[in-house]
């Protein structure tokens, strides 16, 4: 079974928009991969005129929220402009324990790459872009922001369309649904896109998995 990958369109977001945008995208993807019995939940975004669907599972919601918080913390520490979040679905396979590999192996069958371009706040020492922009030159800034916001909303809708299209086009690689399993196990990682930390991530992965090329959870 090959691993399908989908690279979503890059979105330019401000730091306060990350949470909503990521929630929307991640939940939409997981909704399409939660093939057990679910009760869908509609969620309206506050910042945008978009409604997305959650699968309604509390564990999923918690997991996604935790990861988003980690990501935001990470973004604050590494103010890189571009970052990528990887949502991977895997199957758990048990393997013969050997001296090098772990007993439990994850077989990834799908990966989604969410590309975000986190806009750094301009002319702001405090780091709160909206605050600074309200203070300085409000007319221009708000105009620019609203146009950027509209653009982001359209881009976000396009990303959601992209997800639906990908989900539709590729169905064969989805593993069969097991009884009692509501959603396919997944993990969310965010490797850095800058070279300086990429090497560190690789080393970390190797140390954790003992050479096995699996992602960090």
């Amino acid at each position, binding site marked *: 079974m090959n691993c399908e990958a989908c690279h979503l369109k890059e979105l330019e977001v401000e730091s306060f928009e990350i949470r909503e945008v990521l929630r929307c995208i991640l939940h939409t993807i997981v909704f*399409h991969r939660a*093939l057990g*019995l679910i009760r869908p939940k509609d969620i309206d975004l*506050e910042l*945008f*005129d978009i409604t*997305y669907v959650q699968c309604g599972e509390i564990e999923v919601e918690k997991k996604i929220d935790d990861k988003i918080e980690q990501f935001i913390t990470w973004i604050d520490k590494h103010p890189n402009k571009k970052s990528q979040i990887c949502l991977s679905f895997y199957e758990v396979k048990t393997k013969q324990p050997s001296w090098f590999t772990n007993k439990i192996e994850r077989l990834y069958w799908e990966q989604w790459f969410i590309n975000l371009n986190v806009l750094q706040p301009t002319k702001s020492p405090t780091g709160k872009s909206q605050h600074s922009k309200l203070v300085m030159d409000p007319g221009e800034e708000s105009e620019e922001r609203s146009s950027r916001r509209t653009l982001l909303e359209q881009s976000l809708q396009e990303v959601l369309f992209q*997800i639906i299209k990908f989900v*539709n086009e590729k169905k064969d690689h989805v593993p069969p*649904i097991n009884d009692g399993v509501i959603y396919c196990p997944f993990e969310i990682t965010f490797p850095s896109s800058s070279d300086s930390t990429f090497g560190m991530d690789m080393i970390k992965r190797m140390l954790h998995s003992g050479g096995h090329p699996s992602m960090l959870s």
Partner: protein
Amino acid sequence: MDFPENLPSLSSDMGRLEQIVSHFFPKALHIVLDSRIPSLQSRALRSRSSSNVKKSDKWFNLIMGDRPAALEKLHSWHRNILDSMIIDIILIHPTDDDHRSSSSETVIERWVVQYENPLIMSPQTTSDPTTRYQKVYKKAIILLRSLHAQTRLLPAYRASRQLTSSSLAPSGYEMVYKVSSFSDVFSPPVTETMKEFRFSPVEVPPGRLCASVTYRSDLSDFNLGAHITLPPRIIADYVGSPATDPMRFFPSPGQSFEATSFQGRAGGRPPLMTTTSATDRPHSWTSGFHRPPTPNQSFSPDFLHWSRTDGGYGGDSHHHYHQLSPPFSPSGSPRGSNSSPRIINVRPGTAPVTIPSSATFNRYVSSNFSEPSRNPLPPFSPKSTRRSPSSQDSLSGIALYKSSRSGESPSGLMNHYPGHNKLTKDSKYDSGRFSGLLSSSGSPRFGFSRSPSRLSSQDDLDDPDCSCPFDFDDVDDSGLQYSQSLDRRKTSSSISQSLPIGRKSQDAAVGVLVQMLKTAPPLRQDSSTYMASMSGVQREGSSVSGTESEFSMARSTSDALEELRNYKQLKDLLLSKSKNVGGATRVH
């Protein structure tokens, strides 16, 4: 594979495949119409537990709720699976033709679901026939998932929501549907604004299931959104005007509070926190600060209206007090199931919203105002932590208060005391006091203590006869009435009393409140149970005694209970003395 229905002895793989196809149509119909036509929405019938889900609803692992009867009829019409199902979503809108206003219909969406059966039998696939239906079922599930998500993305969804909101629905607009089969199809005027999206077909031998949608991407021509409030924007330093937010509470940034517990309101009152839509659904709350400002404006008048029904504190306070509860907790039904995980079970029939206002009221009355008829309130007492918790006030009110960045709940709370709308000066201070109150009291059941507090002991000592927002004129009646009023006051004042003082973590404050509310006795109970709860309460001291004759506001619940006990003792003493001496003496 969890096939929802019992297949008695359908050994044939083809039978199962046919079942998949035949159930696909009604499911797709349900998904589409549920998201477009409000009258067919089965949201009200959905329950949280999945134990009572009908088997028919479990098809494709997507619980939609009970299917409305109209949909059942529609589906029964569609008998032949080879017939395609065409669902037209039509918008009826007024037009002005020749200076006459008339209505015209425009098809804004067309969904087509069909089972294509090729004339030539497709060759048998190499897949194992026994598991073939499982794979087909899985793909059909994915297809319906994407169809479900797509219904939310298309413009007609927003349009339908706008029309659903009763307060925002423009007159003359209506969204209707029409289901037809291939034979009745008429081609809608395909304009440049119509786009098409084809879902990938699912191979269901011997044919395949196909779905597609043609939709108008631009609905701005219909002026549906003309009445809609502005799109949400971030106002970092939103303060609000004193008229609408007389009591402002600013939670700390980044504090996110579940506001979903207040969606289950009763009486049709608007929730304290919501987006522009009045529909009952959870929202992805981020932090308390990021709220569109307009809902504040749109809802605070309702709060004013709501709170005005309670009026002042005349003889009707009994009734008005109970009227406070609906916006914050549904009357008569436990909210545990509806509340967010962070909200503890609230008891119906309480009015916690009064609490913060009284707290702030206390603060200001004691310092700024000198009501001729009322005395300043005693401040909030940390000693209230010693008091045992009492009735379960609705934590939703408190939580709502905390999470309402725009201060809608405070406005409602504050307006409850129309005579004290002036207490709007230092909202930020209010919030500080409020959060401090939450955090400082352990079990502030009877937080309205009249003993010195950490922060404002002077007020306490100066004015034992404190006026409180809950000053009812009839409180000096018999003990029973007094107990009732005390009961109300103590539940509300306890939290108010325990609100301010210092700034600790919001979570600790909430935890304290929760504890307090959990252990609070119910609001409406007879005097016997009230006495039982009273007996469990520790009292602050004997300072209460001096105010027996004055049932002014700003009492701690402990004081109130103390007074009640005093009265009862007095009554007993009087009775006993009347037998012996015939004179009345005051108890201590």
